[in-house]
C-alpha cells in the first residue's frame, strides 16, 4: 500500500467516525430545540381563514410525518436509516424524502458558491500577487485596502447593497429566482442566458465577499516567499524575471490551495444570507425554513450534509497538499 493510500484509508476511517459523531450530536440538538411545529401550522391556518376545528384536523395529519417513539427509538431509527442514506421524511415537504429535498436544493447552492469561490480565488490570487510586488506603490496600497474593506464588510450587507443597486436603483438584474419560467428548461440559449442572469447577483456578491480574504492571504504569502533565500539565490544567478515569478507563485499559492479546498467544503452551507436576500432557493433557504418550521428530519439532514462536506473537503485538502507539495510528500516517505 502506498503512503497516500494508507493516508487516505486513515482519513476515511476518521471521517466516517466524525460524521457519525456529528450525526449523533446534531440529532440530539435538533430534537431538543424548543417549539411546537404543529401549533405553529395550526395558527397559520387560522390566520388564513380556516375554522379552528378544520385547522385542528388539518394539522393532525402532520403528526403522521413527525418522528414517533422515544428519543432513543428515534435515534436508533435515524442512525439505521443513515446507513441506507435514508434521512427520514420532511414535514414541510410532506411525503418527500429528506435526501431528495436536499439534493433538489443543493444544486442551487453549489452553483453560485462554486462559481463565486472560483471567481474570487482567481481574481484574488492575481491581485494578491500584484499587491505584494507593488506593495510600496499606490496600486499595491489600493489593492490591499480594497481587500481589507471587502473582507470586513459582512456578506449580508454586501448582498443588500448589491440588491438595492442592481434591482432597484438601476434595475438591470432580476430580483430573485433561478431562471425565468417562461423559458423551456434545457440546453438552449434562452434558458442558459436566464440562468446566468439570475445567478449573476448571488455569484458576484459571493465573489466580492470572498475576494478580500484571497487577496490578503496571497499578498501575505507572496511577501513571505519573496524574502526566502531561494528567491534571492535565483535572482543572484541571473534567472529571468518570469522564471523567478513562477518560483514565487508556485510556492506562495500552496497554502491558498488548502484554504480553497476547505472553502469548497463550505459549498453546501456557505451562502445562507445571499440566498435569503436574493431569493435564491438553495440549501441556506431550506435550512432557515426547516428551523422555523421545526422540520427535524430536514434540519438534521441539512446539518449533516454541510458537516460531511466540510469533513470530506478537509480530507481532500490534506491529500491534495501531499500531492502538490513535494516537501510534505518526501517527509512522509522518509518517515514511512
Amino acid at each position, binding site marked *: 500500500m502506498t503512503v497516500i493510500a494508507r493516508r487516505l484509508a486513515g482519513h476515511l476511517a476518521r471521517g466516517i467516525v466524525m460524521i457519525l459523531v456529528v450525526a449523533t450530536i446534531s440529532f440530539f440538538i435538533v430534537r431538543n430545540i424548543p417549539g411546537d411545529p404543529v401549533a405553529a401550522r395550526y395558527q397559520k391556518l387560522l390566520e388564513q381563514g380556516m375554522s379552528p376545528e378544520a385547522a385542528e384536523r388539518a394539522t393532525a395529519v402532520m403528526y403522521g410525518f413527525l418522528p414517533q417513539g422515544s428519543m432513543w427509538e428515534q435515534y436508533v431509527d435515524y442512525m439505521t436509516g443513515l446507513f441506507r442514506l435514508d434521512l427520514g421524511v420532511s414535514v414541510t415537504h410532506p411525503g418527500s424524502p429528506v435526501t431528495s429535498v436536499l439534493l433538489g436544493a443543493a444544486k442551487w447552492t453549489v452553483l453560485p458558491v462554486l462559481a463565486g469561490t472560483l471567481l474570487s480565488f482567481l481574481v484574488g490570487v492575481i491581485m494578491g500577487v500584484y499587491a505584494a510586488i507593488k506593495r510600496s506603490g499606490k496600486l499595491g496600497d489600493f489593492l490591499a485596502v480594497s481587500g481589507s474593506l471587502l473582507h470586513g464588510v459582512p456578506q449580508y450587507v454586501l448582498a443588500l447593497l448589491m440588491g438595492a443597486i442592481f434591482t432597484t436603483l438601476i434595475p438591470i438584474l432580476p430580483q430573485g429566482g433561478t431562471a425565468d419560467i417562461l423559458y*423551456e428548461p434545457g440546453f438552449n440559449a*434562452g434558458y442558459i442566458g436566464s440562468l446566468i442572469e439570475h445567478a449573476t447577483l448571488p455569484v458576484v456578491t459571493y465573489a466580492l465577499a470572498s475576494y478580500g480574504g484571497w487577496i490578503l492571504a496571497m499578498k501575505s504569502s507572496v511577501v513571505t516567499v519573496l524574502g526566502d533565500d531561494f528567491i534571492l539565490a535565483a535572482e543572484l544567478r541571473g534567472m529571468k524575471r518570469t522564471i523567478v515569478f513562477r518560483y514565487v507563485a508556485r510556492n506562495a499559492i500552496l497554502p491558498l490551495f488548502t484554504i480553497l479546498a476547505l472553502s469548497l467544503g463550505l459549498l453546501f452551507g456557505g451562502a445562507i444570507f445571499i440566498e435569503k436576500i436574493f*431569493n435564491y432557493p438553495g440549501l441556506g433557504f431550506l435550512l432557515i425554513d426547516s428551523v422555523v418550521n421545526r422540520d427535524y428530519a430536514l434540519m438534521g439532514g441539512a446539518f449533516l450534509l454541510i458537516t460531511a462536506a466540510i469533513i470530506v473537503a478537509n480530507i481532500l485538502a490534506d491529500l491534495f497538499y501531499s500531492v502538490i507539495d513535494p516537501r510534505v510528500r518526501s517527509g512522509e516517505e522518509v518517515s514511512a
Partner: protein
Amino acid sequence: MKRLAAVVALLGLTAVTACSGGGTTNESSSGGGGGGLFTTIDVNRPGIDPNGPANPYNPKGNSFLGYNAMKLAWVKNHLTDPNQFYPGIAESWEIAEDNSSITIKLHAGNKWSDGRPVTAEDVRLSIGVAYTQGSTAFALTPGAAGAAADVEVVDDLTVKVTQDMTNPSSKFARGVLDTFVAPAHIWGSVLPDDFWDKLKASRGEGEDAEKAREEITALGEKIIAFAPEKDVSAGPFTLERVNPGEALLVKNPNFYNAANVAPDQVKFLNYTGNEQIWNYLISGKLDHAGFTAAPADVMNRIKQAPGTNIIKGYSPVAVGMAFNQTKKPYDNVHVRRGLAYLIDRAEVTKVASPEGGTAAVTTSGIHQKPAQEWLGAELNNLEPYNPDPAKAEEEFEAAGLQKKDGKWALPDGSPWKVTMTAPSGFSDWIAAQENIKGQLVEAGVDAEVVTVADYPLYLEEIAAGKYDVGFWLIALGPAPYDIFQRLYGASNGWTNVAGKITHSAPGKNGNWMGGAEEVEVDGTKINPGELTGKLNSVGAEEAKPIMLQLAKAANQDLPVIQLWDYVNTQFTNTSRFTGFPEQDSDLLRLPAGVWIQLGMVKKTS
C-alpha cells in the same frame, strides 16, 4: 499555473453542465408570454418547491388555489353569515332550512383539462379524500359538530350530503362546499376499494370502529404524498412547469368559464421574505399580491408605482393583548382595566399596523364591523376604554397597587413590571409592544418587551403559561363560534368534544389564560365557554343574545385588551389588467384566481 488553469476550467465546465438541466431536450426559447401573462405571488406560502406534486392537499404542492386547485364553491367574506358562496365546481346548491342537508348541482358540460367530464363521482371521491385530511364536515371524530352522515350521488351532476343531526352545526354547508375537488380518474387509486365500507364502520363504537378510523386517518399521509404524473385540473389554469423560483400555469380551455378568463398564462413568483414582495410591488411587477405588512415609507413607494391599486376590506381577525390570569397582578380585573385605560390603541395601531389595521373601538371579542351587525346599538353601551389616566389610577388603586415615587408597585410594595412577549419576526406585534411599553412607562408602569426566537417557540411557551402578557389573535369570523372560541376555548380552559363542553383548571390541558369559569354579566352568572359552545349549533337570531352576553363578558372582564382589527389589504396593478374587486368586496379573502375564473379580471385595453 497551467495546472491551476486546467482545474479551474474543468470546474467551470462542470458548473455549466450542471446548469444545463441535465441533458434535457434542446428546445427553443418560449420566452415572452404575450400580453396575457398575469404575475402574482402567494403570500401565504413562501418557497415554491419544484419537486412538489400538483396536489392540493400537499402544503408544498404546486396546486394554486383558485387557479389549478378548485373547491366546490368559494366562501364569501361575509360579515356574519358563514354560508355565503361563489360558484366553483358547483354551479348551485340548496341548503335545507334546518341545515340537515345540502344538495349540490355541478356545472353541466364542465370538463377536466384532459377532456374528461366533471361528474358527481369526482365529488364523491373528493369527499372520501376529505375524510382522510381533516375537514369540518367530513370528520371522523365521533360526535364531531357539523359532520356529514351520508353522501349520495343523485345523478351525474348532483350530490346530496346530509348532516348528522345529533350534533349539528350552522356551518355544515360551509364545511361541505369548502372541499377540494380532484379528478376521480386520476385520484381513484388513493382510496382503497373498501373505503366507503370502512367509513361506515368508523361511525360506530368499539374496537372495530376505532381501527377503521385509524386506517382512514393513515391514508392521509399517502394522499398528501400522492403525485399525479400530470396536472389535471378543472380550474381556469393547469400547471405547465415549475422551478425553484417560479411556477407557470397556462389557461385551461376546458374550464367552464374559459371564454371569460383573460390571462393566457399565470406566473407565480417565489419569495423568502417580505422585502422581496415589497421590491416586486415597487417595481410594478405583480398584477396581484395579498396583504404584506410594510413600513410607511415602503408603502408610500409601493403606492407611487405606476398602476398600483390598493383594495381594502374586512378581515375577520383582531389582535389582543392577552393576560395570563394565573400570574399576579393580572388575576385582578382592575389591573387589566387600568392597563386598558392607559393604552392609546389608536397610537399603537398607527405605529404597528397603519395600513393593515384599524384601532379597536372597544374590547368586545368581535371585529368592529361584524360587531355592529351582531350587537347593534348595544355596541355603543360597551365600555370603550378610551385613554384616561385618572380612571387607570382609580382601577389600580382598587386593585391595591401602590404608587411610590411616581411608579406603580404591587400591593405588597414589591416592584411591578409588565413583561410583554412577542415572537421574533412579527414586526407589527413587536412595534406595538414597544409602543405600549413607552406609554406605560410614561404613566409610571414599568414595562419591558421580550422577543422569543420564533412563532413555534412562542406558541409552545404561551400554552405552557410561561408569559405574563402576550399577543393573541381573536375574533376569527364570520361564524359566531369561531369568533369567541379564541377567548373562551381551549386557551381559557374550555374544550369542546363532540358538543360536550368541559372546563380544565388553569395550567391544565392548554389553559394558559386562566380566566374564571363563571362571569357575572348584568347580574347573572354565565359560563362563557358553554355559551360559546352553543354558538356552534344555533341559528343567527338565536346567536345574537348569546353574542351580546359574551361581548359584555369580554368587555368587562378583559381576558384580552383588543388592540386593533385587521384590514384585508390587497395589492393590484392596473397597468396590464383591470376589473379587480371594489373596496370592501366580499371577494377580498379569495385568491385572485377566483376573481379571474369568475370573469371579473380583464386585459387592460
